[in-house]
């Protein structure tokens, strides 16, 4: 099915950002993922598409092990992030999540100030010793907010609560901004635009596109046009399995599988 995809450029294939092998996942007794094999390339945007309930979110949430919060999730198989098995006993979830950031479907800023939101992750990972100096913190906040094009809009109310008075679009940008000071190498995004209006979608999409050089991005989307516009490679999933993984152009123009063709032409899902 999803055999290793060969790069068309002549360069030696770099180490994948995420390598998933024979991965299975159960919610209680319900199996949601079956024998997933997947390599997500470093430095690209990979989109994950498929009909509702096929396991896109589940797969994404397995990569930063946030699924484990539920307590009734069982897994079998392996996921490596830059060559490191994430389920190894010595790997702490906090350490993994420093390297792998996540953006959720509903913008979920924390009920603290905008400033503290941006600094939250940074403090968790860097403030082991003393407190962060004010000037250093200011610099970090400004840089992160500038990168997501939110600085001008919120610079006068950094001390306001982030859950009040921001548009969904601004909240989602803030949720991206708070990942940046942590300096992750991988960003996981679960339908980051689905709660936004078309204008907000365009703005956030553009932002994601801007970020592509510095991060490997794995993004779930329901929106075929978005996948097509905004990703380098594309993975199509169906009923808990990966059906096809190919460069986006190729997958949309000449899909290798019948199901992929049916899905992208809108015949189901």
């Amino acid at each position: 099915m999803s055999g290793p995809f060969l790069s068309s450029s002549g360069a030696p294939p770099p180490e994948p950002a995420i390598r998933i092998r024979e991965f299975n996942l159960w919610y209680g007794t319900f199996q949601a993922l079956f024998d997933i094999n997947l390599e997500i390339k470093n430095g690209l945007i990979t989109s994950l598409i498929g009909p509702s309930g096929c396991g896109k979110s589940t797969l994404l949430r397995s990569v930063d092990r946030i699924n484990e919060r539920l307590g009734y999730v069982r897994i079998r198989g392996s996921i490596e992030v830059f060559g490191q098995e994430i389920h190894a006993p010595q790997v702490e979830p906090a350490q993994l999540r420093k390297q792998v950031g996540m953006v959720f479907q509903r913008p979920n800023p924390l009920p603290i100030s905008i400033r503290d939101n941006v600094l939250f992750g940074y403090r968790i990972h860097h403030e082991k010793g003393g407190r962060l100096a004010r000037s250093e913190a200011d610099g970090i906040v400004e840089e992160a907010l500038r990168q997501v094009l939110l600085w001008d809009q919120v610079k006068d109310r950094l001390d306001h609560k982030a859950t009040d008075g921001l548009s969904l679009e601004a909240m989602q940008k803030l949720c991206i901004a708070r990942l940046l000071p942590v300096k992750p190498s991988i960003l996981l995004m679960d339908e980051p635009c689905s709660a936004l209006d078309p204008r907000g979608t365009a703005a956030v999409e553009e932002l994601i596109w801007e970020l592509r050089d510095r991060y490997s991005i794995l993004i779930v989307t329901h929106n075929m046009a978005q996948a097509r516009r905004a990703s380098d490679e594309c993975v199509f999933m169906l009923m808990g399995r990966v059906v096809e993984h190919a460069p986006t152009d190729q997958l949309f123009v000449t899909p290798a599988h019948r199901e992929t063709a049916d899905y992208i032409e809108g015949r189901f899902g």
Partner: protein
Amino acid sequence: MTDPRSDRRRPADARDRHWYIDKFFEILMFLCGISAILFVVGIFLFVFREGLGFILQDMNFSEFFFSPKWRPTSLVRPTYGILAMVAGTAAVTVLAMAICLPVSIGAAIYIAEFAKGRTRETLKILIEFLAAIPSVVWGFIALSIMNPLIIDLFDAPMGLGVLNSALILALMAAPIVTSLAEDAFKAVPDTYREAAEALGATRWQAIRQVVLPAARNGLLSAGLLGVGRAFGETMAILMSSGHSINIPTSIFDSFRALTATIAAELGETAVGSPHYRALFAIGIFLFLITFLINMAADFIVRGVRKG
């Protein structure tokens, strides 16, 4: 002009048997609903009528609030000072909350954030059980268990006093504070915890930095209702305090609570006498304080809803 629909809209006479049954229950429920209000207003009026006479005729404000001398039965010159009792009640309430809040909030964090399934259900049942113990039984525990225990442990001359009452009150207020605090934690959306953990926070960091601040108002109002509970308690305090009138200076000192004074003395006074009416004035004072505490708690919770 006849609208063809007007015919259909005119109802047949709807007053059949069901209509009457319906109306009957509606009125019954209405009466039940307002009876609660009537009782509250009735009690309010009664207490005020009895106490107001004292306030208007016999009361000396500065003596009432600033004198520690409560000598209502003195033949020479009766004095009605509640300062000692206010100090005792305040001291015991503060100490009780200092013991109760950390324990209850800790328990609530464990139940709401960590415990699962069986453990959680068992704990909740145990806490409800604690709430069901009658106050006289707590008084009995104070007298027969805590009293000798305090004497032994701290080498105190007497085991009845501020510490004993505070411990008993802390235990009595713990169930309500715990369950309200648990509600406050449950009201914090799980997406906050998820967001914090996805940023690399541990469970505990997420609780301390996100859940606790988000639940702050709920916790505050839980604490206030605990204060109200401790403040209004009577029987257990009467039995655990030593009931002697003095301003306590150490946690082993005996004291007398406002509520206990009313309970102990009201039966022995002549109806309508200044002593009798002074006790009602204390009642008004208690009433106002508890009313304020409950209002504050309510106000804070409303604040939560607004955002």
